[in-house]
């Protein structure tokens, strides 16, 4: 049955207009994503239909002044695949979310295309790096950051600058697929640092399965 293989998502955002808009994007996307539940509180992701949704689309600012890092941490520890969808383009918070185990971090300035791709990718347990996150990774100067190759840094910068993988491929003389591979590699490197999270372990398992890394590399 087609219904059974259809992906589902739960939307947690304190603005009804954002929830409605995101739901519309997901339902009409290719492939369409079912909206299992949506609400202004993270409880919708824990109870009812929301508890079994494939992806959690989480707004970090749920009414309060502090970002909902604790909520993100609990969801990730429970093995939920979370796409953070935030108003703020704050590099440090984006990097913290990755560290906690979010599979993607998008700013609301980034449109439907990136959100759909992030949701579909996250549903399969893989990481998605939108341009703004690539910018944050390219500018990361923290002491614990993983060592990236020159080509990987180039890919990050070019993807941040152009928002087009075709364009990055053209610039660097590689295929858009290779651009993706580089981005995934970078995310695997990031998954291997910092604290443990089930989603990170799943991401690494996925990478081995996809042949992106060897068991010996880990």
């Amino acid at each position: 049955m087609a219904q059974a293989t259809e992906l589902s998502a739960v939307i947690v955002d304190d603005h009804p207009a954002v929830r409605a808009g995101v739901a519309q994007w997901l339902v009409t996307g290719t492939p369409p994503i079912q909206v299992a539940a949506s609400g202004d509180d993270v409880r919708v992701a824990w109870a009812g239909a929301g508890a079994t949704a494939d992806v959690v689309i989480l707004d970090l600012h749920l009414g309060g002044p502090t970002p909902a890092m604790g909520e993100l941490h609990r969801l990730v520890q429970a093995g939920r695949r979370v796409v953070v969808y935030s108003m703020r383009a704050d590099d440090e918070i984006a990097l913290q979310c990755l560290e906690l185990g979010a599979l993607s971090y998008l700013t609301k300035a980034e449109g439907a295309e990136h959100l759909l791709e992030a949701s579909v990718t996250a549903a399969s347990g893989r990481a998605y790096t939108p341009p703004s996150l690539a910018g944050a990774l390219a500018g990361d100067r923290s002491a614990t950051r993983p060592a990236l190759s020159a080509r990987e840094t180039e890919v990050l910068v070019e993807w941040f600058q152009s928002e087009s993988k075709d364009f990055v491929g053209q610039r660097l003389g590689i295929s858009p697929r290779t651009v993706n591979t580089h981005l995934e590699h970078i995310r695997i490197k990031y998954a291997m640092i910092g604290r443990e999270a089930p989603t990170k372990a799943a991401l690494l398992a996925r990478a081995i399965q996809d042949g992106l890394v060897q068991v010996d590399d880990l």
Partner: protein
Amino acid sequence: MAGDHVYATMRIILVCATGILQFGLCLHPLLTQEYRQRWLAVAAFIALACVTAVCCGWVLRRRPLPVALVVAGTAVVLAVSFCASAALAPDQRFQASDWSFGLVGWHLLLLLLDRVRTLITVLTAHLVTSMGLFLSAGVPDRATLGAAGAAAFGAVNVQLAVVVITRVLHWQTHEAMAVAEEKDRLVTRVLTAQQWEQGQRSLFADQLGSTLSLLAGLADGELDPRDSDTQRRCALAATQLRRLFAENDDMPDPLVHEVTACVDAAERRGVEVSFAISGAAVPVPSQVRHELTGPVVTALSAARIRARVSMLRTDEEVRIAVVADADDCAGLVIESTGRVGVEYRVYGEFLRLEARWRKQQS
């Protein structure tokens, strides 16, 4: 210094006056009058002439007299005064044969012109000593006393008048110099202000140059607003102006403010611009900022429908990139400047431009 000139000139006059007085007026009594001890009087005369001669070495070169010379000279002159008085018989004092009293005063004036307090003290000491010697020989009669008093009073008065004249001249010159200096300062300030205004004018003329000719062309009907080239020139001028206004704003993050202004100008033309920033604000010198945003202005003014502007900032460098769809990039003039490297290439219908500034390693 103004005062130094007054003192130097007055000293030259004094040195001449002293010489003339000594050889014109005092030599004659020395040669013709009777003295108790002639050799002592002659030695005193020669010693005074020597003091004048030594002073000439500095005075004629308009140099102030060294302290050592002043001290030694004053001591010699006072000793001379005593010796010359001692060489006279008591009844000859303040008479025609007493050549030394007035002359010693002139010598003291020459030596101590710019040390008024010392001069007054020493002159008083000279006067008191001479008077003391005069009176020690017994109380003279009234006529002799009167004549002596008149001679002493006359000599000292003229010398004091010279001191007063010198002080007044010194003060007036000082005033005049201060006024002249103030005037010079004003002239310099006016010149600086004029130059600054000129600089601002030419700066604005530079920045507005293309705008003014464009407006004139449009007003005269020489340029067709429907022409795509005219439209692109207008877009460029509008973005440049917008940046010019933003450039002087006092903002916490001036670079983002300036680029936002450029993005805003492009959006007003209907270009869909996505602008992303990575990294925190870093201090960028205003000239470098200008060089970084200049290429952005040019690239954005060429954008047709969509553009991506991105700013990547780390502690080591600032990179601003524009990727835009542009139909005609042939006319774009984009150059690297000294500190900012600009990379510019066209990929099919897209142009990509990156302005990159690497911080100097400190």
